[in-house]
């Protein structure tokens, strides 16, 4: 069952969203709020359930949908967020990435079609938003598993380098043995000093000892020794 949290100051729009949800999802729970209330805060703080937040940006008071998204992302990076707005897409790219927003939908521009398509995709994706978390003295690193491409050991610094989407490169004081339990099943060891996200592999060439990722990067750290784990 999927829980939907709708925050919109217009009762009419809320009702319309309910209708659209009925059309797309059968097994669901829907709660609605008109503004940021203690109940909504409580709902946000409850991270035990996977939710889809549908937020209107202009809420008619000083707390906007973007503020609510910020509150959500302070505690919850697994739930999905969809923004609904009357305005044009000002700074859309910024908000989309900083709050990991699933989509921005304009109310008066093909709304119904796009909304239903988004909800369908979210259901299909099954909330693949689990994160790799590593806490050091001063910093906390959080990266979606789905965004991690591969992890290898830097023999010079004796640290692990995590390579993620968007040129993300992080060095952590762990070894291969330590990091494996911190990852989920999509990560397998493919070389003596390398772990790969197998969902991101496009091609494997055991003969020449490399794999190609969906980003196009070719990594020469593939060993026949780990073939059985990779091909499972």
């Amino acid at each position: 069952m999927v829980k939907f949290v709708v925050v919109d100051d217009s009762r009419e729009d809320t009702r319309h969203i309910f209708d659209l949800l009925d059309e797309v999802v059968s097994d669901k729970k829907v709660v609605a709020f008109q503004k940021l209330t203690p109940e909504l805060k409580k709902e946000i703080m409850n991270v035990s359930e996977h939710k889809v937040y549908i937020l209107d940006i202009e809420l008619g008071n000083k707390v906007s949908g973007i503020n609510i998204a910020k509150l959500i992302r302070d505690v919850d990076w697994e739930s999905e967020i969809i923004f609904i707005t009357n305005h044009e897409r000002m700074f859309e790219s910024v908000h989309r990435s900083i709050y990991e927003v699933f989509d921005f939908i304009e109310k008066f521009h093909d709304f119904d079609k796009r909304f239903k398509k988004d909800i369908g995709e979210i259901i299909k994706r099954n909330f693949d938003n689990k994160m790799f978390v590593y806490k050091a003295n001063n910093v906390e690193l959080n990266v979606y598993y789905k965004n991690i491409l591969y992890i290898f050991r830097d023999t010079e610094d004796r640290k692990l380098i995590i390579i993620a989407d968007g040129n993300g490169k992080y060095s952590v004081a762990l070894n291969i043995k330590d990091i494996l339990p911190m990852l989920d099943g999509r990560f397998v060891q493919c070389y003596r000093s390398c772990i790969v996200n197998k969902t991101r592999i496009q091609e494997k060439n055991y003969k020449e000892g490399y794999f190609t990722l969906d980003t196009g990067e070719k990594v020469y750290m593939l060993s026949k020794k780990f073939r059985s784990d990779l091909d499972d």
Partner: protein
Amino acid sequence: MIDMLITFIACFASTFGIAYLYYKLSDGKKKINLKTFIVYVLGSIFMSLLMYYEIPIVGAVSYFVYFPILFYLVNPMPIKKLIFYLCVVWIYGFLADLICMVGLSLIYNCFHFEVYSLMFTVTPTILVFVILIILSKLKWVRKLTNFIYSLTKKIDYVFYIIIFFTLFGLILSLLASINVKNFLLVLVIVLTILVLILLMKITFSEFENDIFLNTLKANNDFYIKMDEENRIFKHNLVARLMSIKSVSNKKSIALIDDLIFKFNKNVDTSNSLKEIPYGLNGIIYEKLYEHLNDLNFKVFNNIDYDIFSYLTPKRYNVLVEKLMLVLDNSIESAIGSLEKVLVISINDVENFIEIEVKNTFANEIDIDNLGNKSYSTKGNKRGLGLFSNFRNKEVAFSIKIINNYFVSKIVAKKNKNVD
């Protein structure tokens, strides 16, 4: 008596020849006074007595005891140098002796003169004296001596002593026909003592070096620390001036701008801004002004009251100090990244004022070292800012990296609740 007198004159001349050669060869300030003269005369008498009574071993001893004293009185110098001149003068004297002996032998063989009379015993001494005087007058001899000295400058003085005692021992054994085995035994003992001295010296030098290096390291660490503290201080001072500026009137702002420009020539954006907004907005806009076209930025200030009136002045200063540092870092990082995103949100969260700065970045980040004094993704002598931000606990500061966004959060507890 006449024999005695002749021997004395020979010794007097011989000693003078050696002393004069030394006087001429050695550099430095020389002094000849009554004390030197008395030592010279007494030494000559003593030497002539030894020569008269044919005690050659004591003669050799006297050379290595009497001449060092005489040389030192004529020209006081470090022991190492004195030993060098003793050896050199001895070698010149030895060569002069050799020349004389060869010359006299030739004369004896050719003309069959009686060379065993007292006159002939004294003649070589007088001849040696003449040769030594000639040598002391020759410039090339002086040059040669200086050249040899320059070559031997790097030699440890212990080796000088070894050479000195070896010469001494050789002369003793030659003159007194001492058993070679005994001489070697004495030489081994002397060398052992010298090696021990050398070892002690090396150990002492190492100990001295250790102390010196430790002191040097401590001083170096101190200067590095002072340099770092000075840079933190400079940054914080500018930040505090900006803090005052953010809540000042126009005249005060002009004064502070002038002062800030003196501290940091790079900060002069305010002249281009006609009116600087009040409070944190002013600081943010001043920082962003230069980069308006370089960044994809957004600022959310959700606080509509005067933050300054809800924080103690000290806390407000620290808040601005940390915000400025975060802005400097995040602007630089965002500009260097592909997306160039920078989002600043200022929120009121219950009893706290919370500033969150999110930016994209391009560098590899060492998660374990970030915030440490020596670490920076931006090169040498950087990374002090984050270290300073973590150090001051007046205002909370934290960093998270979430999906390729660098998120810096500054949280200051309010003085009183917002109505």
